[in-house]
C-alpha cells in the first residue's frame, strides 16, 4: 500500500473504532443514570415506576421497625413536608440512625412502599448526604447542615 492509502485506512479504522466505543459508552451511560427525588416528589408520584432511583432525607424518628425473624427493616424517610415508607432487607450501614440523613436506592412498589435495594453507607458521623440535605432545603426543613453536625453523640 502507498503511505497515503495506508494513512487513509488507519484514519477510517480509527474513526470506526472511536464510533463503536462512543456508542457503547453512551448507551451504557443512558441506561445507568440514577436520578434523585425528594420524599415530596415521591408523594406527588412524580417518580418513574420502571427504573431505580434514589430518595433521600432524614430517617423519621420512631419509625424504624424491625421484623423479628429476619433482616427486614421498615422506616420512613422524610424531608419535613412528606415522608415515604421504605422497606429494606439486609444489613444497614453503621451510620443509619433515626433522625439522621439517609439515601436509599430502589423503586416504589404497587403498595406505595419504596423497596430499597441499597441504603447508602456514609463515612462520617457529621456528614449529611448532599442529596438528603438538598431534599430538606427544598421542603423548607429548619435543620441546616450546622446543627445537624452538632447533634453527633451516643451510638445506639
Amino acid at each position, binding site marked *: 500500500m502507498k*503511505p497515503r492509502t495506508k494513512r487513509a485506512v488507519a484514519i477510517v479504522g480509527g474513526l470506526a473504532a472511536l464510533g463503536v466505543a462512543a456508542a457503547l459508552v453512551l448507551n451504557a*451511560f443512558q441506561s445507568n443514570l440514577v*436520578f434523585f427525588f425528594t420524599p415530596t416528589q415521591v408523594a406527588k408520584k412524580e417518580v418513574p415506576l420502571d427504573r431505580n432511583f434514589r430518595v433521600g432525607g432524614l430517617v423519621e424518628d420512631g419509625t424504624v421497625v424491625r421484623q423479628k425473624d429476619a433482616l427486614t427493616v421498615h422506616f420512613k424517610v422524610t424531608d419535613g413536608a412528606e415522608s415515604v415508607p421504605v422497606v429494606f432487607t439486609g444489613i*444497614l450501614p453503621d451510620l443509619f440512625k433515626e433522625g439522621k440523613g439517609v439515601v436509599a436506592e430502589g423503586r416504589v412498589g404497587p403498595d406505595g412502599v419504596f423497596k430499597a435495594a441499597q441504603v447508602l453507607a456514609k463515612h462520617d458521623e457529621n456528614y449529611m448526604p448532599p442529596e438528603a440535605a438538598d431534599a430538606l432545603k427544598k421542603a423548607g426543613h429548619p435543620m441546616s447542615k450546622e446543627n445537624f453536625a452538632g447533634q453527633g453523640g451516643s451510638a*445506639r
Partner: protein
Amino acid sequence: MIPEIGQLALVLALLLALAQAFLPLAGTSLGKPAWTATARPVAIGQFLFVALAWAALATSFVNNDFSVANVAQHSNLSLPVHYRFAASWGSHEGSMLLWALMLGGWTAAVALLSRHLPERIAARVIGIMGLISVGFLLFILTTSNPFDRLLPPAPDGSDLNPLLQDPGMVMHPPLLYMGYVGFAVAFAFAIAALLEGRLDSTWARWSRPWTTAAWCFLTIGIALGSWWAYYELGWGGWWFWDPVENASFMPWLAGTALIHSLAVTEKRGAFKSWTVLLAIVAFSLSLLGTFLVRSGVLTSVHAFATDPKRGVFILGFLAIVVGGSLALFAWRAPRVGIGGQFSGVSRESLLLSNNVLLVIALSAVLLGTLYPLVVDTLGLGKISVGPPYFDTVFFPLMAPAVFLMAIGPMASWKKAELPVLATRLKWALGVALACAILVPLAKGTWSALVALGLFLAFWVIIATAVQFGGRLRAAPQAGIVAKLRANSASWYGMQLAHVGVAVFIIGVTMVKGFETERDIRMAPGETVAIAGYEFKFTGTREVPGPNYGAMQGIFEVRRAGSPELLLKMYPEKRIYRASGQTMTEAAIEPSLAGDLYVSLGEQVEGNAWGVRIYHKPFVDWIWGGCLLMALGGFLAIADRRYRLARRAAAAPSGALATGD
C-alpha cells in the same frame, strides 16, 4: 512556638519556591548562567523548609497541642501515638501539606539525580516544578493553613475519623500522593521539552524512569486504598467506581498510556507530540483529582470541609496549568514533530492501540465522574452514575488491550510479520483457550464472562512464558545464569508487570464469578454453611480497646461435615469513645485460594445479630497483581542503561539501548 516555626518555614518555602520558579526559567531564556545555576540549591532549600513545616505539624499532633485548630479537630488524647502521627495527614490542611512535601521531595530528587542532564533542561524542569510549588504553597497559606490557632485551646480534641484509624490508612495517602505528585516530574519534563522545542530519544530516556516511578507509587497507593475499603468498610467490596476512586484511577490510566508511549518515543523517536500531550493530561488529571477530592464537590471520607474558597482556588490553578500547558503545546508541538514511520503491524502500532484503548477508557470514566457534577452545577437536578455503567464500558475496552498486551513485547519495532507471531503464539492461544473453558467447568458453573477473564489471564501468562523460553534459547551465552543475565532489567520489569495484570485479572474474575455472600440473622448456637465451610455463631463478648469499646462476635469455622474446629473468627463492632461513632471491624481469614470474611451487622433482637458471611475466592490476587505491576515498574527503573546514562554524562543517544 512549634506551630509558629512551621508557619514561618512555610512562608520561607513559598519565597524559595518563587525564586526556584523565576530564576532558572528566566535565566535559561535570558542566557544568564548565574541565575540558572541557582536552580538546584534553591530547590533543595525549598524542600527542607517544607519538610520543617511538616515536621512542626507532626510534632504538634504527637504532643497533643490542641491550641492548633487542625490538631484539635483531628486528634484526641486517647488516640494512640502512631495514629496521632498519621493524623497529621488525616485532615484537609495536613494532606495539602503532604502534597507540597511530596512535590518538594520529587523536586529535590530531580535536583540531586539530574547531574547528567544538560544544564538548561534540568534548570527548566526544576523551574516548572517551582511554579507548581508556588501554587500549592499559596493555596495552603491562603485557604488551608494547618497552623491556625484555636483560642482558647481545646481541653481535648474531637477525634480522627475511626475509619482512618487503621494501618492501611497510615500508608495509603503518602503512597498515593507520591504517585499523583510524581507525574509533576513527567509534566515538567514535557513542558521543558516544549520550551526548548527539542524532543528526542534522549529526552524520553531522561523522563522515563521518573514517570515509571510515579506510576509505581500510584499503583500501590490505589491498591492500598482498595484493600482498605475491602477490610475496613465491613462489606467486602474492593472497588466501587466511587468518584473519589475514579479521581485516582484516571491519572493512573493516563500514566499507563504515558509509560507505554514513552517507550516508543525512547526506542523509535515516534509518538512525540502524543507523549507530551499524555504527560500534560496525566498531571492535569492528578490536579483534577485533587480538586474533586479536596474541594468538597464530592462528599466522602476524603472531603473534609466545604469551603468554596478552596474549590475556586484549585479550579483556578487547574485552569492555569491545563490552559497554559495546552496553549504552549498548540504553539510548540509542530516544532517537536510527530516522529518516525511504522507499519500497520509492528510494536508501535500495538502500543498505539494500547494507548487509544486506554484513553477511550479514561474518557468514559471521566464522563461518568464529571457528568453528575456538571448536571448538579447547572441546577438540572441530582443524578448519579451507577457502577454498572463503568463495568459495561470498562471491560469491553480493556479486554482487547490485554489481549494485545501479550503480543506487543514479541512484535518487532517498525514492522512485524504476522505469520511469525502466529507461529510463536498458536500454542499459547490453544492452551489458554482450553484452560479458560475447563477451569470454570471444573468449578461447577460456567459463564462466558468468567471464561473470557480466565482466557485473557492465561493468554498473558503463557505468552510471557513463551517469550521467556525464546529469549533463553536465543541467548548465545553458556549457562542458565549467563543466559538470564543477557536480558535487561527493564525487559524483566515489563514482563513482571504484565504478569501482574494477569494475576489481577484472575483475582477479579474469580471473585466476580465464584464469590458467595450471605447476609443473615444469627442467634448464638446457630450454624450456617457456605462454600464448603460451616460457620457457628457461639455468642458475643465485650472487649476494651485503647480508645474504643468493642462487642466481639465469636464464630467457629469448620469444613462442611467435619467435626474438627478449623479456626475461630472474631469480628467486632466498635464504638469510639471520643466521637461516639460506630464502626464495623470485619474478621478476615486470608489465603491464596480465597478469604473467609465475617462481619457483624447490628443486634437484631435479644442476642441475635445480623451477620455477613462471605467467601471471596482469589480476592488477594487483585492486590497481589497490583503489587507485581509496581515491582515490575521498579525493576524497569533499575535498568543499567539509566545508570550508565547518569555516569557518562554526555553519552550519545541510542548507543546504550539494548534488548527490547
